[in-house]
């Protein structure tokens, strides 16, 4: 079974969880043998061009030591054989189209999504 993980929300609870929860879920299922593809769309495309790690949170005397590192997590996914796509139209709408892609992330147009959706057995929209 092939599953497409669609991530269209960026930075959902990344400060508290110290990762993107769906990227984490995907890495974990990949480790269990899952055949997965990731599609970054909507605000999620920012992950494809992000160049800095999450800033650490400080509250009074409490300081975060391990903030989220989305780029590391995407790299790990790509290295484990999970294809990662980002929707170019969504990057353009957000003024991010001139930014350099994280190596290994593949650009895909909105028009080409049909083929990507057709290539998998299930689409999980998060």
């Amino acid at each position: 079974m092939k599953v497409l993980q669609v991530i269209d929300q960026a930075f959902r609870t990344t400060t508290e969880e110290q990762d993107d929860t769906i990227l984490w879920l995907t890495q974990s299922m990949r480790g269990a043998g899952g055949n997965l593809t990731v599609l970054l769309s909507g605000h999620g495309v920012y992950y494809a061009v992000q160049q800095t790690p999450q800033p650490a949170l400080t509250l009074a005397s409490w300081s975060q030591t391990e903030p989220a590192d989305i780029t590391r997590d995407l790299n790990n996914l790509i290295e484990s054989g999970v294809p990662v796509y980002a929707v170019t139209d969504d990057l353009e709408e957000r003024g991010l189209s001139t930014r350099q892609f994280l190596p290994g992330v593949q650009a895909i147009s909105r028009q080409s999504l049909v083929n990507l959706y057709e290539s998998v057995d299930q689409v999980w929209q998060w």
Partner: protein
Amino acid sequence: MNDRKTLTFAFMDPPFESERTVTFFRLLDAALEKDTHVRVFAYEGAVALAFAKQSPHGNAVHGRNTEEEAHPLTKDWIVALQQKARTKGLNFEWINCGLCVDERGVNDVIEDCGRGGPPDLWRYASQSFNTLTIGTR
């Protein structure tokens, strides 16, 4: 029984925060109504849906005590769905993401709600007719 389909649901929302939670439970009930086996993977805040220490309260604004108010609790909805499944000879399985449980301290869950992780979601989905994921917004 053998020709009955199985549906997997992955859900992220906690109780008492969003109408998605109610809709999610309506979908589970509808699936059982259609003689479908149900498997749930509760992720993030959804692990609190099965928290055993949820307790009802009265409501002074409504002028009702605890018994009269009969406040809805998601753990009771799960029990009701478990009972419905048993009555209809269907499977109703529920697994909470264990790490999500730990970070929220909601380890005390009602009966027949297990602890697991993402590999269980993959197993559930692989063995199901289809999967519905409902993420937090």
